[in-house]
C-alpha cells in the first residue's frame, strides 16, 4: 500500500506527474491514491519532502 504522510506532504503535484498509471490525484491540498496504484515506488523516490512510502 502507498502511504501518504499528510503532515509532510506539501501538495506540489510532482508525484502526480510521474505516476505511470495515473493513480494519483491532487485535490488542492489532499493527495488521493486510487486502486490503480501498482506500488511501483516511483513517486516515493521523487517526493521532495519524503511524504510517500510503499508499505508492505
Amino acid at each position: 500500500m502507498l502511504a501518504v504522510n499528510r503532515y509532510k506532504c506539501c501538495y506540489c503535484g510532482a508525484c502526480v506527474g510521474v505516476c505511470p498509471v495515473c493513480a494519483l490525484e491532487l485535490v488542492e491540498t489532499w493527495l488521493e491514491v486510487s486502486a490503480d496504484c501498482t506500488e511501483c515506488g516511483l513517486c516515493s523516490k521523487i517526493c521532495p519532502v519524503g511524504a510517500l512510502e510503499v508499505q508492505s
Partner: protein
Amino acid sequence: MKCDLVIVGAGPGGSMAAKTAAKAGLDVIVVEKRQEIGDPVRCAEGVGKRALCEIIDPDPRWIAAEVSGARIYAPDGTSIVMSEDRAGDEVGYVLERKIFDRALAMDAARAGAKVMVKTRALGLCTKGGKLSGIRAMRLGDEIDIQAPLVIGADGVESKVGRWAGIDTVLRPKDIEICAQFLVHDKRIDDMYCEFFFGNKMAPGGYIWCFPKGENLANVGIGIQGSKSKGGEAIRLLREFMKSHFPDGRIVEMVVGGDPCAGLMEKTSADGMMLIGDAARQTDPITGGGILNAMRCGIIAGEVAAKALGIGDVSEAGLKEYEDRWRAVLGIHLERSYQYKEFFVKLTDADLNQLISSLRNEDISKMDLRGMLRVLFRLNPKLLWELRHLII
C-alpha cells in the same frame, strides 16, 4: 453550462490563452481547482527581462526585484559573473508570482473570460465520438461544461493530455525535483542571481539564489528525479543553508516538480491543445517555464479563435498550433534537452574545469550560445559530444 472554449488551469499559460481567445470574441471558461489563483507558489520566479517585456508590459506590483546579472559557482567555489545582457534570457526580473498569476487571470476576466475557481476538471466528455467538453467538480458538485474545444494548461501534474490519449508521463530523469526557502539574510546580494553547481550539492541540477529585494531571496534546489530519493531535495537544501546561510531566516517554503522532458511528439488531438508545463514546454536546462507557457498560451488562444471560426477543431484543424509553437521554441527546446542530457553526466572535476576556463575570457558581450562557443574552443575534448550543437 456551455461555451466555445474551456481551459483547464489558471497558471500563466491558461490565463494568457484565455485572455487572447476572449479578446478574439470567444466565449471562454477557465477552471482552476485551487481556491486562490497563484497560491501556493511552485516557482523560483526568475524571468528574462527583455523576453517578458516582449509579451506583457511590466507592472511594479508583480516585480519583486530587478537584478544586474548572474554569478555562477563551480563545485570548488570558483565563480564567474555574467551581466544581465548575457544571462538575459533567464534572469533580469524576479517576480512575485502570487500577484503575477492573479493579475494575468484578472486580465483574462477583464477581456471577458469566465474564471471558475475551486473547480477541478475530472475528465473529458464525448458526444457521438467527438470531444464535447469536460466534467468538473465545483465545490463538491459535479458539473458538465460543454465546449467543442479544450485547452489543457494544468501544469506539471497535467491529466488533460492523458485523457485525450497523449502520453505526458514524466520519466524520473525528465523532471527536476525542487525545494525552496524564502530566506532573509544579510549575506544575500540583491543585485545578482546566483547559481551553484556540484554533484554532491545538487545531483543532476543546481542550487539557485534569486534575490527579491531587501536581503530576501528564493534559495532553492532542483535535482534530477532519477537521482532523487524520498526527501532528498529538502535534505540537500537544508545542508546548503547550513553551509551558506547559517543565520538565514526562513519565512516560506516551496516544493515542486519542474518538467525537463524536451520536445513532445504531439501536443494536440481532436478538440484539444496542451500548453505550458502540461505540454512540457519548460526549458530542460534552466527549468524556466513561465514565459514559454505564456507564449504558447497566446498562440493557442489565437489558433482556437481561428479554428472555431472555420468550424474545424480536429487535430488537422489545430495543426497551426503545433507548427507555430514549434517554430518559436522547437529548436531551442531540442538543443536544451541535449545540453541537459550532457550536463547531468559531468563530474565535479569537469564542472570545475569548464567554469574556471572562462575566468580569463571576456564574455561580457556574449549570449549563452556565444559562451558555449568559447567553452568549446577552450575545452574541446570535454565538450566533443556537443560539437554539432555548438558549431
